């Protein structure tokens, strides 16, 4: 019926085609200027945070473990939207006023840091104890064994679940509009709020997301293959 009605009404068809075409450029702009950089920066910062958190959670220090545990629980337990809200609109109340983009990076990095730390923690624990011991037995310190022996192997098992997080992040960045970052989905909303074809424009945005995520899953496959080289 929908399809029918579109093709039955050439004028409407032309209008929709036109909207689809003209909205592509601003959306891509939003993707390239904001969505993609935001995703990449937040993911990198988040992963570093995640490794540190994972190490804290498996460490001996009770205080360290406690802090890391509360952090993970609080971030996983509350909506990202509210976290961004607090960072951007709440912190000024205690005298900290942050840039939109910086706020977004902090929010998303904290989020990735918490979720990915669980993945990395599990991955580190999955490396046989013998690997630590082999490192120690040739005189390595904890840090050396971690960096040279354990993390490279943990990377292998974490690639698929971390890709899940990465791919989710791409789409979660749409929340950045809340803190005034004009990312792709915001552009879509702007466009649709002018021509009221929300369904069409949103679907178009979804397709762009899909393309980005497709590249990421190709990257995932490449990484998996590369890291599987020695198995």
């Amino acid at each position, binding site marked *: 019926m929908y399809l029918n009605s579109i093709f039955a009404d050439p004028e409407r068809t032309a209008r929709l085609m036109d909207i689809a075409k003209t909205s592509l450029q601003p959306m891509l702009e939003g993707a390239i200027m904001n969505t993609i950089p935001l995703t990449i920066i937040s993911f990198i910062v988040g992963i570093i945070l995640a490794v540190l958190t994972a190490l804290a959670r498996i460490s001996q220090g009770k205080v360290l473990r406690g802090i890391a545990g509360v952090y993970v629980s609080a971030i996983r337990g509350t909506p990202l939207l509210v976290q961004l809200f607090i960072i951007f609109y709440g912190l000024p109340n205690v005298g900290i006023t942050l840039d939109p983009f910086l706020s977004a990076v902090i929010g998303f990095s904290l989020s990735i840091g918490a979720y990915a730390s669980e993945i990395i923690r599990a991955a580190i624990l999955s490396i046989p104890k013998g690997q630590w011991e082999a490192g*120690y037995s040739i005189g390595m310190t904890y840090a050396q064994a971690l960096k040279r022996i354990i993390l490279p192997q943990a990377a292998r098992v974490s690639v698929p679940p971390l890709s899940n997080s990465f791919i989710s992040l791409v789409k979660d960045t749409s929340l950045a509009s809340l803190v005034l970052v004009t990312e792709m989905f915001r552009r879509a909303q702007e466009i649709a709020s002018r021509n009221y074809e929300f369904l069409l424009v949103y679907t178009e945005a979804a397709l762009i997301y899909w393309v980005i995520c497709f590249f990421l899953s190709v990257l995932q496959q490449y990484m998996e293959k590369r890291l599987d080289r020695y198995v």
Partner: protein
Amino acid sequence: MISIKGLHKQFDQLEVLKGIDLEVGKGKVVVVIGPSGSGKTTMLRCLNVLEIPTKGIISIEGNSLDFSKNVPKKSIAVFRRLTGMVFQNYNLFPHRTALENVMEGPVVVKGMEKSKAREKAAALLQKVGLGDKMDYFPSQLSGGQQQRVGIARALAMEPEVMLFDEPTSALDPELVGEVLRVMKDLAQEGMTMIVVTHEMRFAREAADEVIFMDGGVVVERNKPEEIFINPKEERTRKFLNMIQ
């Protein structure tokens, strides 16, 4: 010279080592035998300080650790380099080639230059008969080959004493020989060695002394020709009957 005095190790409730005293002269080869759970592995791990003994003193070539007191992490790391450990299931680094496995210690721990470490590692792999497998990953090597890489990796740190924990027990019967041959060569070159193994051929041909452990203590120690033919203790006799 290695000396162990009053070595105790307790896991929670379980006392695994109940006072081990042992001296091994420089260049000597000692084979340790004994039933499962008697504490052989634990003793080796204490020498490599992979386990912290509950009490006791270990000294190797003048360096000594007294575990009755608190031992700082730093001295453990230093002490650890005096011993080279060869594991039952190899524990090679799967993400590094044979050559890289052997280079890892010299480069990372000793800070040796890469090119020099590579040369040294290549020479060691040559020595254990793997000159043609240097760029293989562990997963591409047979068990016997992996274990020989493990030996080369330990040797690269130039330890005073080599510790072997059942180095051939995970191997197919026909691959055992190649590893034992490398170990015999090492013994002949004058390396001090403590070897946990049930390979009687090796004990007979290469050991200066055989030690029988049971229940966390050394029950009997003697020359191999003596202990196998004429064990003094009843427990030793029983055990030897069972495994032969």
